């Protein structure tokens, strides 16, 4: 079985070697490595395309080991992996059209609102909502900018992750 993946690496010596090391150790075959230092991911890291070969069990072991070592796999077999982004809004959430708030976020490509929790306050002007967004890797900036924008136009306090 063959598996193509893209992982993010820091642009410092030794990183690529450290990421490749468990592949051989765990018994998988390294087929190709494409390492283009001039391309950067959203987080300022280098995307490295790696193709490996082995049985399902071995490939699973490799993926787990990479995770454990803190390497972030952002794409597997052409599917971009998702990341979760949480934000909290405070304001007159309900009266300022919740559906429109969600629609505006959903309009972004590769982005979808996965969860919305509302908590009403005694004072409707200060209700709170937690919005959980699932987005393709690399979309975080766009999502946060969009939510900030909505917050500005609807007078919400936007609390985003550090």
């Amino acid at each position, binding site marked *: 079985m063959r598996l193509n993946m893209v992982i993010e690496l820091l642009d410092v010596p030794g990183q690529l070697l450290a990421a490749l090391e468990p592949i051989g150790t765990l018994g998988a075959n390294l087929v190709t490595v494409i390492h283009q230092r001039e391309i950067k991911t959203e987080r300022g890291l280098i995307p490295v395309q790696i193709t490996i070969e082995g049985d399902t069990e071995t490939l699973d072991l490799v993926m787990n080991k990479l995770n454990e070592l803190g390497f972030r796999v952002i794409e597997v077999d052409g599917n971009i992996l998702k990341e979760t982004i949480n934000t909290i809004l405070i304001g007159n959430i309900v009266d300022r059209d919740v559906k429109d708030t969600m629609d505006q976020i959903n309009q972004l490509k590769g982005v979808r609102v996965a969860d919305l929790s509302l908590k009403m306050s005694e004072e409707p002007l200060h209700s*709170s909502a*937690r919005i959980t967004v699932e987005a393709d890797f690399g979309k975080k900036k766009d999502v946060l900018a969009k939510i900030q924008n909505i917050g500005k136009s609807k007078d919400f306090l936007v609390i985003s992750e550090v």
Partner: protein
Amino acid sequence: MRICLMGFGAVGQGVAKVISLKNDYLKEHYGLELKLVAVTDSSGAAISQDGLDPDLLLKIKSETGKVSNYPEAGIENIDGINVLDKVEYDTMVEVTPTNIQNGEPAKSLTIKAINDKKDVVTSNKGHLALFFRELIELSHQNGVEFKYEASVGGAMPILNFAQETLPGNEIKSILGILNGTTNFILSRMTIEGSSYEQTLQEAQQLGIAETDPTQDVEGIDAACKTVILANSILGIDCTLKDVQVTGISRITSEAIDLAKKEGYLIKLMAEVSPDSLDVSPRLVKQDSPYAVDGTLNMATLKTDLADEVTVVGLGAGSVETASAILSDLINIWKSQK
């Protein structure tokens, strides 16, 4: 080292306490004798070229509220600037209240002391947040030391830490909690589930929040510290107006609850980087280095070589802040030996 102590509020009194406590230690370890030759407060000053007794100063201040009641050396209604002309000194320790409108009286006192070729140590943020570059350049032109460790994070070491303990590292950004009052309020709201107004009142009763809490809760105090960190550690030329500021007064217990359920806390974070000068409430993970409670301050420095380094410490308090002032005084003393 002869010291003019400008201001005798909580921090000023902390400095007197620390001098009294540490005099023997400093003599023994550094050969340094800190002699208070003038102390001012809003009532006037006490001036003595032979040195004032720090314990007597504290006693008189607590009993009468005025340093000008100091026996023989007390002078009523004398201006701080005139005090600097009346006495011979080496270092001005300036701990007057922070003023974010025009930075006075700290600004004028500092300019005068520097022009008179005196070293200056301050805990004040106002003049630094408004006129950072101007004051630093003036100190360079005059070849004097101008140190302000106590202005950011109280006892939490950060300025000297970045410059002296991590030299050679390029510091790319700083993310931190730079205001103890708001951290206390948000921590209490998280633990107790109480409302913002209720918790603010509690903080005021405990003396953690001021009667007029605006500077703390609206993020202005943290923004001043953001400016100081940006200029001194990251070399970003900026003043208070360049910082995007959102306070915590709109935070509700419901919002905190929603955050908690996903494993987050809400903290007033200051972000200092070439792309962003921002103070605003943010979500932080419950098990992250940002999850410090109570009046604690913290800062994570992102560096090119050492990766992330985090410091934590008490952000306010009289003796705690004075400890940062003392470290500046000792550093000046060591650099001149």
